[in-house]
């Protein structure tokens, strides 16, 4: 079988180009408008109706809603998910470096006296602001990616179970830190006792992470990873990423990964970042208060 005349393909237009000349189908009957997409191997535009790429012969899987449901995890990820992963890893690396540099600048310069609560709060607020900016930039860069559909479990089951699971994770968190203290590790005081800046501490430690950390780990990162990894592996990788992002408290990373697992499953089964954001806020509030 001879591949079709290339000139036909060249004049058939690009994907969804209304000005393109329609392709004549094999029977020579009335022209049929077709949608084209790039071949996964040679990247040349190929009709969605073609069983094989006429240029490199790669067998083409038909794009259809039925296929999307049958594909691993039912993913609707765009073909070039490699770019998404590159952007995601770059975002993670940039946020880590930004945190280290901010910490370096603030601790080693004369700008901030960390014994002064107000200055410490401002410094942490600045770090939060830089992190929020990075998260928003990468959320915009990855906006076209879509997550896998959530499993078919009733929300009236998901929400209560998630709250119970978070309660257990919180208990594990407290138990773990008590064990560290009993081993002689010094406890880090997040908020000074009797602080007059309580509302600002709540915003810095509870509200900002609940919004921006969830937007990154269970929002943008989730969308990129879920298509390639499926549900459970995405939860594991996102929780590892979440834990590792807390480089300021490295001994807490293992238990934070457990918290990340709870948040990840909450995201998976609820289908949005609202539930994990609420859980994250409540978790951080409990840690601050106790």
């Amino acid at each position, binding site marked *: 079988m001879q591949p079709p005349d290339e000139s036909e393909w060249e004049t058939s237009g690009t994907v969804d180009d209304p000005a393109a000349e329609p392709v004549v189908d094999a029977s020579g009957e009335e022209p049929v408008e077709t949608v084209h997409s790039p071949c996964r191997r040679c990247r040349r535009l190929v009709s969605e109706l073609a069983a094989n790429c006429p240029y490199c012969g790669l067998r083409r899987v038909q794009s259809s809603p039925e296929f999307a449901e049958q594909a691993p995890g039912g993913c609707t990820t765009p073909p070039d998910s490699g770019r998404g992963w*590159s952007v995601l890893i770059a975002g993670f690396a940039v946020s880590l470096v930004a945190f280290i540099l901010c910490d370096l600048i603030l601790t080693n310069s004369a700008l901030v006296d960390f014994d002064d609560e107000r200055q410490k709060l401002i410094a942490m607020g600045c770090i939060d602001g830089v992190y929020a900016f990075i998260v928003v930039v990468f959320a915009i860069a990855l906006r076209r990616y879509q997550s896998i559909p959530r499993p078919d479990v009733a929300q009236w089951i998901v929400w209560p179970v998630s709250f119970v699971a978070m309660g257990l994770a919180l208990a594990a968190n407290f138990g773990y830190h008590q064990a560290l203290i009993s*081993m002689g590790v010094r406890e880090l005081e997040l908020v000074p006792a009797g602080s007059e800046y309580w509302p600002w501490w709540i915003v810095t430690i509870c509200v900002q992470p609940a919004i921006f950390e969830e937007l990154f780990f269970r929002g943008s990162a989730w969308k990129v990873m879920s298509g390639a990894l499926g549900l459970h592996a995405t939860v594991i990788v996102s929780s590892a990423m979440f834990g590792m992002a807390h480089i300021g408290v490295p001994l807490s990373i293992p238990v934070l990964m457990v918290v990340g697992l709870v948040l990840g499953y909450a995201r998976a089964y609820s289908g949005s970042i609202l539930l994990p954001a609420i859980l994250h806020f409540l978790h951080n509030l409990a840690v601050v208060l106790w």
Partner: protein
Amino acid sequence: MSDDSDGLDGLGSLAQSARSKQLRSAKIAMIAVGILTIGANAFMGLGAKAFVEAAFARELKGIPADQIDNAKLAELKESAVKTVQLSAVAFSALGVVFIVLGLLVYRAPVLCTSLGLILYLGGWAIDAAFDPAMLLKGILIKAIVIAALVKALKAAIEYQKEHATAAEAS
């Protein structure tokens, strides 16, 4: 066309073979990183007391002895030694994780390479948070490891896709 398709199928196999080689590089890199991490942290854990003493001596250099609260100092030193030892144990566990991920890379390519990359970047960041000089120390080797893992991740995504397509086709 059948001759062409044989050649073209061969091209597909060549591509998979190239990706498989990149996964093998990632496997070697992750196992090597794991072994080095365990070794370095075992050394750090065993010598924790000496390292802490040296660090405190550097910080207290030039401060008159009568201005130092020795009881508080002893408490801080003990806490620091415990922290260093616990960190060494935690990082050694991370080293074990790297080795396991390296061994399992062909079973779950995307999962293992992505986890390996995230844990490596995170480990580097934690080192740098404690000692900013670590951001640039050994940067060439770190860049090579990261490049190998990034390439392996991209190869793993394509490898997994081709496997899924081949499985559906058969």
